[in-house]
């Protein structure tokens, strides 16, 4: 920690949050809000005089509220930076008539009530997301009595209690009567591996954390009676089994079964009722103290950051990696990496390992000092452009410039274009070529797909980042779905032009599915909003033409939603079966008569 604080190449911004990120790999433009500390970080020597005179007493968050701090305080003794911090919401104010006692005693004059929040802008080549996790709040599991009974603690509260630097200086006492407990129980999987309340996954660290706690307790008091209530003990890591064995050898009792109820006895002890899975009997255990091994859940800031960076989450709410085995620290967006619990629950060793991996991946990108762009970008054919401005309106990256008044043709800043293809899909004259996903390239795929037995096929457009990845995820999970689905990959659902869909129906497609990232998850900021609008517009047109609008479907499938992909495919198959040969023939006839639904001539493919 201290190394990071004094490293000449690390700019440490505490009390700070990222508020905005623009740009792309190599040059992300980041806005950071640094909140006022009200104490000069560099000048403060952490002498503590200010806190001594501060009259405001508040619970200390670092000690889980088991001790108190002042309104001006040091977060914890080894804090980096070591400077004190003033909580302006708790402080009585800087009016000398009210308080300002701290200012009076600070010899170095570090305290400044007029300090204001600062907005800092930086440009960076790569980003490492290490937002960590939060622990599960077990209050909703009422049967364990957390918050009702003072001697039921979370594992984190217990951690502070047993810590030599904690509120009791490491002495274990019961919160109800400050007496040393003679027996302690641990309940595992609190908020983990539960289909009912809390989270469904294993939180990875709680088993070993409890084993560790039993060893520390036995060091304190070898005669202490310790019981651990568990479903499975997962001691899979290097050296873990040794610790587990040592814990059992020291007399810690491991009882298979989670408590059904906990009740408080008159002396503040707890009576735990548990069905012992080994004996099949209902047992009652009286314990002086009960520790709930709480699970890990995604940090609160995960969602906000995910939206800001256009990243994906797994169904658990943690960040989704580009590939679970081969790119476990990369985000799908180039230049962004994950470290620690942001990607999933893990212990310190795994967090450190992943952090070093993320750093290495970032260096691998940056070492040459330049970056090769993806050449999948859009281009304008100036002579066909009517300067209507539609492309500039829909571009999520402001990469298109067009002067509607002077009628100068649109131009695209290649470096800013991310290649979603929305402009090409929306261009009314076909003047935009989307490289690698040109109209003709996609139309050829449609033609080949529908050349034989078109009525049997489910034509599906899938975006590269979510829906196509969702189909991959269905594959990896071996989820079986109807075999007549045929996917055409585009980078974004925004690329799927009206003309592709009309073309498909004209070629005899019974149904067409357009699929993309969920709204808010689009890899191209908000390009899928245009997809949504376009599909709605097309369905209205279909209705007018006398084509059943349901035959065109729009579904959002995320990269993690293999199950959803398979389900959507089954639904599409049902829909396909409802389309008769006569209906298809009628549609083909209607579309051949209607000029505005005929595919545009593709201009960029000479």
């Amino acid at each position, binding site marked *: 920690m201290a190394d990071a604080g004094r490293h000449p190449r690390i700019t440490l911004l505490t009390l700070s949050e990222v508020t905005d990120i623009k740009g792309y790999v190599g040059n992300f433009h980041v806005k950071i809000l640094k909140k006022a500390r009200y104490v000069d970080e560099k000048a403060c020597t952490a002498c503590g005089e200010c806190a001594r005179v501060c009259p405001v007493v508040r619970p200390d968050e670092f000690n889980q509220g088991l001790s108190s701090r002042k309104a001006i305080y040091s977060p914890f003794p080894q804090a980096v930076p070591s400077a004190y911090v003033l909580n302006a919401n708790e402080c009585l104010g800087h009016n000398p008539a009210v308080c300002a006692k701290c200012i009076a005693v600070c010899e170095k004059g570090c305290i400044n009530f007029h300090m204001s929040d600062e907005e800092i802008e*930086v440009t960076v080549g790569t980003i490492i997301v290490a937002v960590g996790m939060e622990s599960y709040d077990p209050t909703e599991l009422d049967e364990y009595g957390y918050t009702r009974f003072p001697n039921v603690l979370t594992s984190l509260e217990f951690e502070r209690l047993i810590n030599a630097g904690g509120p009791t200086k490491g002495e274990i006492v019961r919160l109800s009567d400050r007496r040393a407990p003679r027996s302690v129980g641990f309940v595992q999987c609190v908020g983990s591996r539960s289909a009912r309340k809390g989270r469904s996954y294993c939180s990875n660290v709680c088993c070993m954390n409890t084993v560790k706690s039993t060893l520390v307790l036995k060091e304190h008091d070898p005669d202490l009676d310790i019981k651990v209530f568990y479903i499975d003990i997962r001691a899979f890591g290097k050296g873990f089994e040794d610790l587990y064995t040592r814990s059992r050898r020291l007399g810690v009792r491991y009882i298979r079964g989670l408590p059904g109820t906990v009740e408080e006895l008159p002396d503040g002890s707890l009576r735990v009722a548990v069905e012992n899975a080994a004996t099949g009997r209902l047992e009652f255990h009286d314990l002086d103290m009960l520790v709930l091994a709480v699970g890990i859940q995604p940090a609160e800031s995960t969602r906000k950051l995910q939206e800001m960076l256009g990243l994906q989450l797994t169904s658990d709410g943690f960040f989704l990696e580009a590939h679970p085995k081969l790119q476990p620290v990369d985000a799908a967006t180039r230049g962004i990496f994950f*470290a620690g619990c942001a990607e999933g629950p893990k212990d310190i060793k795994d967090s*450190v390992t992943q*952090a070093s991996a993320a750093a290495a991946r970032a260096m691998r990108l940056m070492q040459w000092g*330049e970056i090769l762009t993806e050449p999948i970008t859009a281009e304008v054919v100036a002579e066909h452009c009517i300067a209507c401005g539609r492309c500039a309106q829909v571009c999520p990256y402001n990469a298109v410039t067009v002067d509607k008044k002077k009628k100068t043709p649109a131009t695209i800043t290649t470096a800013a274009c991310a290649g979603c293809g929305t402009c090409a899909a929306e261009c009314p004259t076909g003047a935009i070529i989307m490289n690698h996903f040109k109209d003709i390239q996609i139309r050829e795929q449609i033609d080949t797909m529908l050349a034989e037995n078109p009525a049997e096929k489910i034509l599906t457009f899938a975006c590269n980042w979510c829906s196509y990845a969702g189909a991959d995820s269905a594959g990896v999970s071996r989820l079986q779905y109807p*075999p007549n689905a045929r996917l055409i990959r585009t980078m974004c659902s925004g690329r799927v032009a009206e003309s592709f869909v009309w073309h498909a129906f004209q070629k005899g497609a019974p149904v067409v599915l357009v699929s993309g990232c969920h709204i808010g998850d689009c890899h191209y900021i908000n390009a899928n909003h245009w997809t949504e609008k376009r599909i709605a517009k097309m369905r209205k047109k279909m209705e007018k033409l006398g084509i059943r609008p349901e035959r065109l479907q729009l579904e959002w499938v995320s990269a993690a939603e293999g199950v959803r992909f398979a389900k959507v495919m089954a639904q599409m198959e049902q829909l396909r079966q409802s389309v008769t040969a006569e209906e298809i023939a009628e549609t083909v006839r209607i579309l051949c008569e209607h000029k505005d639904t005929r595919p545009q001539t593709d201009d960029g493919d000479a």
Partner: protein
Amino acid sequence: MDASTFLSAPPRVGVYVCHCGLNIARVVDCGAVVRSVQAMDDVAVARELPYACSEPGQQVIKQDIEDMGLNRIVVASCSPRLHETTFRQMMRDAGLNPFLLEMANLREQCSWVHMHDPEAATRKAADLARMAVSRVRRLSPLHPQRLPLTKKTLVIGGGVAGIQAALDLADSGYEVVLVEKRPSIGGMMAQLDKTFPTMDCSI
């Protein structure tokens, strides 16, 4: 090959159907897939390979490119999200533009998801391979642009992971901006006493 000769040269497509060991071949009749593309326009060669991504597999493709003057390649194997970069690199090594490659996803989209219907899976695989051939014939070479890069990393979060990543980068000579929303770095780890498996102090 320069741009002008490329544009005038007719497409010569090589199609490679990967068995992926038995991952694909157990369900999909790879020989039938090869036969379904052989008669297509511009297809110069179509073959089965046990593992297209392996070194020997890539060597076969590279040799064909050289011997038969192939200028576009279809690899019908796994998801392009997995191996597109592998095969693009192979194209580069063989002197072709990496964007003249198309993949058909026979593993994630056929053999793994239609395990109980090999015939339908094979029909689908053939369709996907044929679609890939139609597309690859229409692809154009593309060239990436070189852009300057900022040798600086933003690390969001000052827990044990953020600190470790920041230190590794900074020690290797890169500038780091480490952003932490609390008043001190340290995160959850700083709150822990002894930590497993070494039972030593976390700070």
